[in-house]
C-alpha cells in the first residue's frame, strides 16, 4: 500500500465519520439483500426462511395488536429489575474486591466458580426456590449478570494506577476518601461500560426465563409462535429484540461519552 497512514485500510487509523456510517449501512443492506435473495429461491421452504416482505406485513399486523406492546413492556421490566438489582449489589462488591486484596481472596474464587455454572441449568432450581412468577425470572437475570459484573468492576478498579492512590495519601486523603473519591471515581467509565455489556446479557437471559413459564414477554411469544410454525412472526420478534438491544447499547454509549467526557478524547 502506497499510503499506509491515510488509506481507509490503514492499521488503527481513524476514518471519516461518513465513511464509517456508510460501511455500517452497507453491512445492514448486505444482510437484508442476502436474506431477500435466499428467501426467493424456489428450493427454499418459506417455513424455514420467510420472505422479508412477509415478515414486514406480519409485523405491521403485530404492531397494531396489543400483545407486542405488552410483551416488550413485560420483558423490559424483568430485564430492568434484574439488571438494577445486580448493578446495586455488584458495583459496591466489585469495588471492594478490586480495592482490598483480602476481599479478593474471600470472594473472587467463589465468584469465578459460580460464574461457570450455565445459567439456563439453574431454571428448575430457581422455579423451586422462587416460584413460577416474576421473582424467578428476575432472579435468573440477576444471577446471569451479577457474577460477571462483579468481576468486571473489580478489574476496572484494579486497573486504576497505584500512583493515584499514593498521591492522594500525600495530599491528605484518608483510606475512605481514596476508595470513594479516587478508586471508584477513576474506574467509573469502565464500570459503566461493564453495565452496557451486562444489559446485553440480561436480554439473553430474559428470553431464556420466558421460554419456561410465562404468560407474556418476547420469549414466551416466540415459543408460542413456534408451536404453530408462524416463522414470519418469530422473525419479526427477533428483529424487535435486535432493535431494542441496539437502541439500549447506543443509549449506554452516549451516556458514557457525555458523563465521562474526561476519558473520551474522540466522539463518533
Amino acid at each position, binding site marked *: 500500500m502506497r499510503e499506509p497512514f491515510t488509506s481507509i485500510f490503514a492499521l488503527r487509523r481513524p476514518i471519516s465519520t461518513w465513511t464509517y456510517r456508510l460501511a455500517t449501512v452497507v453491512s445492514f443492506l448486505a444482510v437484508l439483500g442476502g436474506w431477500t435473495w435466499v428467501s426467493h429461491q424456489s428450493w427454499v421452504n418459506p417455513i424455514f426462511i420467510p420472505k422479508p416482505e412477509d415478515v414486514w406485513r406480519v409485523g405491521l399486523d403485530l404492531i397494531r395488536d396489543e400483545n407486542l406492546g405488552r410483551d416488550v413492556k413485560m420483558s423490559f421490566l424483568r430485564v430492568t429489575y434484574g439488571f438494577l438489582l445486580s448493578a446495586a449489589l455488584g458495583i459496591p462488591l466489585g469495588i471492594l474486591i478490586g480495592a482490598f486484596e483480602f476481599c479478593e481472596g474471600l470472594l473472587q474464587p467463589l465468584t469465578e466458580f459460580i460464574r461457570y455454572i450455565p445459567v439456563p441449568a439453574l431454571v428448575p432450581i430457581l422455579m423451586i426456590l422462587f416460584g413460577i412468577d416474576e421473582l424467578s425470572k428476575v432472579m435468573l437475570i440477576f444471577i446471569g449478570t451479577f457474577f460477571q459484573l462483579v468481576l468486571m468492576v473489580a478489574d476496572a478498579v484494579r486497573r486504576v494506577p497505584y*500512583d493515584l492512590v499514593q*498521591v492522594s495519601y*500525600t*495530599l*491528605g*486523603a*484518608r483510606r475512605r476518601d481514596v476508595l470513594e473519591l479516587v478508586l471508584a471515581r477513576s474506574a467509573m467509565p469502565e464500570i459503566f461500560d461493564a453495565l452496557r455489556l451486562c444489559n446485553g446479557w440480561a436480554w439473553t437471559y430474559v428470553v431464556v426465563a420466558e421460554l419456561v413459564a410465562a404468560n407474556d414477554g418476547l420469549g414466551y411469544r416466540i415459543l408460542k409462535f413456534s408451536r404453530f410454525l408462524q416463522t414470519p412472526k418469530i422473525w419479526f420478534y427477533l428483529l424487535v429484540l435486535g432493535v431494542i438491544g441496539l437502541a439500549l447499547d447506543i443509549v449506554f454509549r452516549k451516556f458514557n461519552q457525555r458523563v465521562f467526557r*474526561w476519558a473520551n*478524547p474522540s466522539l463518533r
Partner: protein
Amino acid sequence: MLEIRDIEKTFATRKASVRALDPISFSVKAGEFVTLLGPSGCGKSTLLYIVAGLEKASGGSVWLEGQEVRGAGPERGMVFQNYTLFPWLTVAENASFAHQLPRNIDYSKRPSEIMNQVGRASALLDLMGLADFHDAYPRELSGGMKQRAAIARALANSPRVLLMDEPFGALDAQTREEMQEMMLLLQAHEKTTVLFVTHDIDEAIYLSSRVLVFSARPGRIARDLPVPFGPDRPVDLKISPEFMALKRELFELLHQGAQGQADRSRLLRKLVDPSPQISSKDHEPEPPSH
C-alpha cells in the same frame, strides 16, 4: 527541620533478602533544597518514599519539626515521576483537590479563608504558566504542563516539605531545562523546603543548596556536598568553571562503583570478534531450564 535517623531498608524476596539501604541519617534545614543524587537502583527513591510515608522502613525514624511521622500526610507533599493528575478533574480542580476532601471542609471557616485557599491554588497555577489551562483536562496537556500542574497541586496544600521523585525524568531535554528554571523561580517565591531525587548531575547542582551523593547496593551516603551558588542562578551558570568543577567531582564520585576497565575490554572484545570459540569460552554453561 526534617530529620532522617538511621533509616534502613531490606526487601525480602522469596529466596533471599536484599539490602537496599544501610542505616542513613541526615537532616534538612528549613528552606534548604537537598538533592539525593545517585545511580539507578541505589535506593534514593526508596528513601524518599519512606520519608513520604508510602513505604515502610525496616528500621529508623523520620522526624518533622520535632515530631516523629508515621504514614503519609499532607505536611509532606510529593511530586512523582509518572504523571499523577486525576484525569477526571480539571487542572484547577486538581490543584484544589486537598481543599475538597471531607476532612478539610470546615464549616466554621470564614469565607475569606476559603477564598484564600482557592486563590492560592489558582495563583500557583498562574505562576507555573498554566493561566490559560485552569479548565483543561489533564489529557489535553503536554507532559511538562502535567508536571507543572502536579507541582502546583502539591504546593497548594502548603506542605512543610516538598518531596520530588525525579519529577522531570520523563520529559525531553528542552522541557526539562525550562522546568528547572521554573523550579528556581518557584523556590525564590515560595521558599519551600525540598527533598529532591535525581540521577542527573546538572540538575542536582543547578537546583540544590546541598547534594547528597549515594552509592549503590546497599545504598548509603557517599558524600554530603554543599552547593556554593546563591539563590540567583542564571542559565549560563551551567557552563561556568565552578559549575564544571563541581560536576567533575560528582561525576567521579558516581563512577567509582561503575564497571571496571577489565570488564569493559572483555565486553568490547566479544562485540568486535563474535567468533564461537571466544563466546563459548566466555559463556557460563546455561542452567537447565526445568
